């Protein structure tokens, strides 16, 4: 049976939304994530750092000789642990939102 677990690290609103956007994709560019969430670079970086420290998110800069640092793509992805924790957290939210009678 699938695990149900409320995760306080993920539940912070911006972090929940970050995980929600990373969950259905393999990788997402930092700029795309920032624009979709309508948050600043600093805010997104802060929350990503928290998620990365918890082992939920990885980031990797794409190297390109044709681009300077400012235009490099930073690929973000949920780790396996991140996907498991997010799925368990969503199930916990679903249980709260629609309690069984």
């Amino acid at each position, binding site marked *: 049976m699938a695990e149900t677990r*409320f995760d*306080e690290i993920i*539940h*912070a*609103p911006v972090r*929940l*939304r970050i995980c*929600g*956007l990373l*969950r*259905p*994709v*393999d*990788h*997402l*560019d930092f*700029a*795309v994530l920032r*624009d*979709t*969430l309508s948050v600043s670079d600093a805010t997104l970086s802060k929350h990503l750092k928290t998620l990365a420290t918890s082992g939920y998110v990885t980031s990797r800069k*794409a190297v390109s000789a044709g681009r300077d640092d400012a235009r490099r*793509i930073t*690929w973000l992805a949920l780790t396996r642990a991140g996907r498991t924790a997010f799925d368990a957290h*969503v199930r916990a*939210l*679903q249980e*709260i*939102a629609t*309690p069984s009678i």
Partner: protein
Amino acid sequence: MENHFRDPSREEAAAALNALSSDREHLAASVHAPWTLLAAFGGVGAWWVSAAAATNPGANYEPPSSSWLALVGTLIVVYLIQRETGVRFRRMGARAGWAIVGIIAACLLLFSVSLGFVSFGMHWAVAPTSLVAFATTTWLASVAYRSAVEHLRHG
């Protein structure tokens, strides 16, 4: 100061789940199919089919080495689309799978037809089959891309 959100209410939990759906919807709406790059898939397909014109069908037939180059070209276009959109899809959906099968089948069929034309000395007829390959591949690539975006929209 960071808040902690232990034990959200029913309404808060529902709102959080709705926000996740809205974000996926927003992301899917912002990911536009890069038509020039989808047409590049068509270009690869057309180029591969047109390679039939340079072959010598019959007993001395040797398959062209363009297949590997076409594969490399396809991978380069995939890479460029990912850079352009900033999204690497995890799953593309069944419709995308069928579209990719359709691209391969159409190109193989058109290549065979082109070989037939060449065997009759009608080298000029490879041009229309290549054009058909371009149009078919571009269209099916767009179908596959739209399928991936829809898959993203529904999580």
